[in-house]
C-alpha cells in the first residue's frame, strides 16, 4: 500500500515535471513562429530591411527553443505509456486518434518545413521560403488545437461510451473534439502563447533600448510587442473570464478551490483577493475579500448563490492551496501585463515610446512573466481537476500502470538531472543571444566578431547579416 502510494506520487511528480518543462517551449514557439511569419511577410511586403534583421535575429533563437520543444515533446508521447499504462489502455481509443492527428497534421508540417525555413531561403527563393515559414506557424497552431482538444476532453469528457473491459469508446467524434471546455481552453492558451512571446520580445527590446534607443530593429521589435500587449491582454482577460464561467458550469469544484470558497454562500459569494488556505480547519486565514464580487463575476448577479467545498466529499476535493495560489499568481501577472500594455499605449500616444526608461525597465522585468503565468494557469487547471485524470470517471490512482516506486524514482531523478542540465544550457544560449542586439553578425557564436552595442553603425549591421 505504501509503495503503491509512493509510486503514484512519484509518477505524478514525474508527469508534472516533464510536462511543465515541455509547455514552456511550445508557449514560446507558437507565438514566435507566428511572429516570424509576420516579420517575413512584412519584409517581403514593405521591402524594409529592418524586418529582415529582426526576423534573422529571432529565427536563431526560435531554432534553439524549437529544438528543446521537440525533444521534450518526444518524451511526452511516451510518458502516457511508461507510468500511466492503465490510463493509456482505457483512454487510447478516444485520445489516441486525436494525438495521431496532431502528429500527422502538425508535427510533420512543422518538422518538414522547419529545415527550409532555417536553411533554405537561398535554395528555394523568397516565395517558397515564406510559404515554409507560414507552414511552420500553422503547424504550431494546429498542434495546439489537437492537444488542447485532448486535454479538454479529459476535463469535460463527451461523446463516448464505456465498454466491457473499461475502455472509453468513441461514439461521436464531433462531440469528443469539440467538447464543452475546448474552445475556451484553446483560445485562452493560444492568446497566452502570443502574450508570452510578446513580453519576451518586449523584454529583449527594452533591454537593448536602455543601451541604445536609436537601433531601428530594436525599435521595431519594441513597437510590435507593445501593440500586442495593448491589444491582446484585454482579450486574454476576457477569454479567461469566459473560460472560468465555463469551468463553473462543468467543473464547479475547481472553481471552489480557485476562489477559496470552503463555505457555501447562499446569497452572494465574496471575492477573496488574498489569504492563506487552511486545509485542516477548512477556511481561508487572513482573507482580504470584497463581498459579493465573486457572484458578480461568475454569475453576473450580486446575490447569486455559490456552493462551496462543504458540499463536496473529502475524497473528491482537489488540493485547495496549490490551486488557490497558482490562480492568483496567473491573474496578478495578467493584470500587470495589462498595466504595461496601457502604459506603452499612453507613451506611444505621447510620442515617447522609445524614450521612457522606466517603461523599458518594466518590460525587462516582465519579460519572463508570461512563462510564469502559463505554468501557474496550467497548474490551476490540472491540479484543480484532481483526483481525476478523466474528470468524474477515471481516478488518477486508477490510471497508474504496474510500476514500482524505485523504477519511477530512478527515472524521475534521471529526468530532473538531464532536463536541468540540457535545458539549462539551452536557456543560457538563448539568453546570451538575446543579450546581443539585433543585427549582430554571427549572433549565435561566442568567438564571432562581436561589436559592442551602439558602436556599430546601423547601415553596417544591415549590410553584414545576409552573408551568414
Amino acid at each position, binding site marked *: 500500500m505504501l509503495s503503491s502510494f509512493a509510486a503514484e506520487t512519484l509518477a505524478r511528480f514525474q508527469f508534472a515535471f516533464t510536462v511543465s518543462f515541455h509547455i514552456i517551449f511550445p508557449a514560446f514557439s507558437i507565438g514566435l513562429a507566428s511572429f516570424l511569419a509576420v516579420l517575413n511577410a512584412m519584409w517581403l511586403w514593405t521591402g524594409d530591411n529592418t524586418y529582415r534583421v529582426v526576423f534573422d535575429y529571432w*529565427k536563431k533563437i526560435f*531554432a*534553439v527553443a524549437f*529544438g528543446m520543444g*521537440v525533444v521534450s515533446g*518526444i*518524451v511526452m*508521447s*511516451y510518458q*502516457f*505509456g*511508461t507510468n500511466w*499504462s492503465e490510463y493509456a*489502455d*482505457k*483512454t*487510447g*481509443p478516444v*485520445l*489516441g*486518434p486525436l494525438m*495521431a*492527428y*496532431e*502528429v*500527422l*497534421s502538425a*508535427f*510533420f*508540417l512543422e*518538422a*518538414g518545413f*522547419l*529545415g*527550409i525555413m*532555417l*536553411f*533554405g531561403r537561398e*535554395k528555394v527563393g523568397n516565395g517558397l521560403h515564406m510559404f515554409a515559414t507560414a507552414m511552420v506557424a500553422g503547424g504550431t497552431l494546429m498542434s495546439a488545437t489537437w492537444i488542447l482538444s485532448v486535454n479538454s476532453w479529459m476535463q469535460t469528457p463527451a461523446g463516448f461510451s464505456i465498454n466491457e*473491459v473499461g*475502455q472509453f*469508446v*468513441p461514439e461521436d467524434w464531433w462531440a469528443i473534439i469539440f467538447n464543452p471546455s475546448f474552445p475556451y481552453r484553446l483560445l485562452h492558451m493560444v492568446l497566452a502563447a502570443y502574450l508570452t512571446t510578446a513580453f519576451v520580445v518586449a523584454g529583449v527590446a527594452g533591454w537593448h533600448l536602455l543601451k541604445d534607443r536609436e537601433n531601428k530593429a530594436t525599435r521595431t521589435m519594441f513597437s510590435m510587442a507593445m501593440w500586442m500587449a495593448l491589444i491582446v491582454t484585454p482579450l486574454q482577460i476576457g477569454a479567461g473570464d469566459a473560460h472560468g464561467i465555463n469551468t463553473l458550469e462543468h467543473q464547479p469544484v475547481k472553481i471552489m478551490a480557485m476562489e477559496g470558497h470552503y463555505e457555501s454562500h447562499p446569497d452572494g459569494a465574496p471575492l477573496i483577493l488574498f489569504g492563506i488556505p487552511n486545509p485542516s480547519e477548512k477556511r481561508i486565514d487572513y482573507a482580504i475579500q470584497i463581498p459579493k464580487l465573486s457572484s458578480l463575476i461568475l454569475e453576473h448577479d450580486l446575490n447569486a448563490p455559490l456552493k462551496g467545498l462543504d458540499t463536496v466529499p473529502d475524497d473528491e476535493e482537489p488540493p485547495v492551496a496549490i490551486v488557490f495560489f497558482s490562480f492568483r499568481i496567473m491573474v496578478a501577472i495578467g493584470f500587470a501585463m495589462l498595466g504595461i500594455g496601457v502604459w506603452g499605449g499612453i507613451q506611444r500616444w505621447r510620442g515617447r515610446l522609445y524614450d521612457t526608461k522606466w517603461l523599458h525597465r518594466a518590460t525587462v522585468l516582465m519579460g519572463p512573466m508570461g512563462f510564469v503565468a502559463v505554468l501557474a494557469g496550467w497548474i490551476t487547471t490540472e491540479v484543480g481537476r484532481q483526483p481525476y485524470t478523466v474528470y468524474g470517471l477515471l481516478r488518477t490512482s486508477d490510471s497508474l*500502470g*504496474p*510500476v514500482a516506486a524505485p*523504477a519511477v524514482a530512478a*527515472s524521475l531523478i*534521471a*529526468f530532473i538531472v538531464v*532536463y536541468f542540465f*540540457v535545458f539549462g*544550457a*539551452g536557456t543560457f*544560449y538563448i539568453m546570451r543571444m538575446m543579450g546581443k542586439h539585433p543585427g549582430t553578425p*554571427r549572433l*549565435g*557564436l*561566442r568567438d564571432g566578431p562581436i561589436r559592442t552595442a551602439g558602436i556599430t553603425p546601423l547601415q553596417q549591421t544591415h549590410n553584414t547579416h545576409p552573408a*551568414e
Partner: protein
Amino acid sequence: MNFVFDLAFIWAGLIAFAVLTYVVLDGFDLGVGILFPFAHSKKDRDTMMNSVAPIWDGNETWLVLGGGGLFAVFPLAYATVMSALYMPIILMLLALVFRGVAFEYRWRTERWKKVWDIAFFGGSTIAALCQGIALGALVQGIEITDRHYSGGWWDWLTPFSLVTGVAVVVGYALLGATWVMMKTEGAVHHRMRDLAKPLAIGTLAFIAAVSIWTPLQNPVYFDRWFAMPGFLFTLPIPILLAVAVYKLFTGIARGQDVTPFLAAQALFVISFVGIGISFYPNIVPPSLSIWDAAAPDSSLKFALVGTVVLIPLILAYTAYAYWVFRGKIDPEAGYH
C-alpha cells in the same frame, strides 16, 4: 493461420510502415552521430552534422508517430510494451534529448563544443542501442496477464537483446557512413568509405547471428518462416538480401555515391520484413494479437481517414525537403 484483411490488419500494416520509415530515415542520422568520433577533424564533424541538420527533426517525427499511432489504434500494445520496456525506452528518450539539442547547441559555444559533440555521439549511440534492445526484448516476448504487463523489471535485459542492441548500432553506423559518403566529398568522404566496409561486414554478421538465434527464442518463429503461407514471403528474402549485399560491396569498392546507401537501406528493409513475418499475427509476442490489442472500429476508422489523406502529403513534402537539400554538402554553408 488465417489471413484476415480488416481494419486492424490495415492498421498493423500502417504502424509497421511508420516504424520502418522511422528506421530508414532516422537510422542514418543516428548513424552520423555514432560515427562522430571517427571523423578526423572538427570541420569534418561540422560537415557531417550539416548533412542531416535540415532533416533530422522530420525523421524523428516518425518515432512520435510510432508512439502516438500505437496509442491510438493498439492502446493495449502501447500500454503493455511501455511497461515492459520501461527502462530502455526512458533511456532512449533521454539519449534523444541529448543528441537533438546538440544540433543547435554545438554552434552556440566554442568552449563547450566538445561537450555537445560527446552528447551527439553518446545520445545517438545509446538511442540506437536501446532501440535494438527494445526490438530484441519484443522478439523474446512480453508476458501479459489480464491486460497488464506481468513480467519483471529486468526481463528485457538478456544476451539476445544485447546482441540485437549492438546489431542496430552497427547497422545504423553503416547507414550513416554510406549517407555521409553520398553527401560529401574529399577527406570525410574517404574516411567514411574506409569505415563502410568493416561496418557492412559487421552488419551482415549480426543479421546472420540474429536470424539464427531468433527461431531459438520461440519455435513459433521457425514455423512462421517455413510453413505456408509464410514461406511464400520468406522465399524471396535470401535472394533479395544477396542482391543488396552484392550492390553494397561493389558500390563501396567502386566509390559510387548513391548505390551503397540504397543497398544498406535495402538490408534494413529486408530484415524488417523478416521480423514482420516472425511477428504476424501478433503485435506483442507471444500472446497479444493484432485483434486483441486493436481499439474499437470507430477509433480505427476515424484515424484511418486522416492517415490515408495525410501520409501521402507528408511523404510528398518530406521528399520535397530532401530534394531542396539534395547533392553534396557545401562545407561553408549553414545558417549559423
